[in-house]
């Protein structure tokens, strides 16, 4: 967390003559639990978790936030966040979040989903949660494969990209082109905020955090549905080293999934109040 909290570390770095003091500027956010994650080395789920946890800390909403985890690599997210969590059936997190939000409108509800979960089996649920303008926040991690099950093709797999279920490279005629969920969801009136960011570099990660913060603020203001898509890596199933995987996001994924805010306005018909 890039904090401006002043925590003097009782170490010998404090030099009275030098008139300077050492300030802690980055540490684990409180909402991130102490448990080591099971994610593979270099998997950017860890960064996505940290950003969400930092935003929850900064907005001071941990004690009234409920997360909904998907089925996929982040099915264990309930272990890694220090807030109440439910684990939804594959693809159903937006429906579960709808149920939670409708009976507890004063709580902050967010879903954390992968691309197989959201763009494939859960495509109806995400579409209609957006269409209803549910006042929830969706954190959508897009790493172009099904990670947990070992690297199969997902709706976001790039054309030509080899996966365990597109061994010759995704074929346009056989299995279509990647689904651009941010652009799709941004068309829907009930939606207040949709942004696609990437986690492939420190600079992009900082922008991603701003987008996540903006999404949660939308919910706090009762402005309706907010979603942040995060391009992320899967070193294990992409068969790349972590550093190489981030380059791959930048050079291959970003051209197919352009970054930016696709919707950032108060929707005309949003009557949903907190």
């Amino acid at each position, binding site marked *: 967390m*890039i904090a401006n909290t*002043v925590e003097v*570390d009782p170490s010998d*770095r404090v030099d009275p003559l030098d*008139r*300077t*003091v*050492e*300030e*802690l*500027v*980055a*540490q*684990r*956010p409180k909402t*991130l639990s102490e448990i*080591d*994650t099971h*994610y*593979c*080395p*270099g*998997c*950017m*789920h*860890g*960064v996505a978790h*940290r950003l969400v946890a930092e935003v929850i800390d900064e907005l001071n909403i941990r004690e009234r936030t409920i997360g909904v985890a998907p089925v996929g690599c982040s099915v264990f997210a309930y272990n890694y966040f220090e807030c109440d969590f439910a684990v939804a059936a594959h693809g159903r997190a937006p429906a579960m979040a709808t149920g939670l939000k409708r009976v507890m409108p004063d709580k902050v509800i967010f879903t954390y989903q992968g691309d197989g979960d959201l763009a494939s089996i859960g495509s109806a649920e995400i579409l209609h949660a957006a269409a209803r303008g549910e006042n929830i926040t969706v954190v959508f991690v897009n790493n172009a494969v099904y990670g947990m099950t070992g690297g199969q093709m997902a709706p976001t797999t790039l054309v030509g990209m080899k996966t365990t279920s597109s061994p010759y490279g995704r074929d346009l005629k056989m299995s279509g082109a990647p689904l651009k969920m941010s652009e799709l969801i941004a068309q829907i009136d009930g939606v207040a905020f949709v942004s696609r960011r990437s986690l492939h*570099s*420190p600079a992009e*990660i*900082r922008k991603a955090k701003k987008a996540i913060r903006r999404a949660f603020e939308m919910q706090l203001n009762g402005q309706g549905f907010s979603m942040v898509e995060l391009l992320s890596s899967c*070193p294990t199933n992409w068969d790349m*080293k*972590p*550093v190489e995987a*981030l380059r791959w996001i930048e050079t291959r994924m970003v051209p197919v999934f352009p970054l930016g805010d696709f919707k950032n306005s108060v929707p005309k018909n949003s009557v949903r109040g907190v």
Partner: protein
Amino acid sequence: MASKGRIVIDSERCKGCELCASVCPHHSIHMAETFNAKGYRPAVWVDTDEQCTGCATCAVICPDAAIKVYRQVALRAVPSGV
């Protein structure tokens, strides 16, 4: 001139993914020769030429929030009683 920044890497939490080393503007981070309990070669803060400014770029990219970053800050003339 002493470094303006310092980092502390939790070597047991680190999974040796090398991302921090790849982004540090001053190459102050290398991978250890030894292994941690999980069998990863953790990142190590070397900062041989004391270039570290505490910019926290390493902490931003660390997927395991394993890096604490400290920065030397001029002692502001802090009015008493604040």
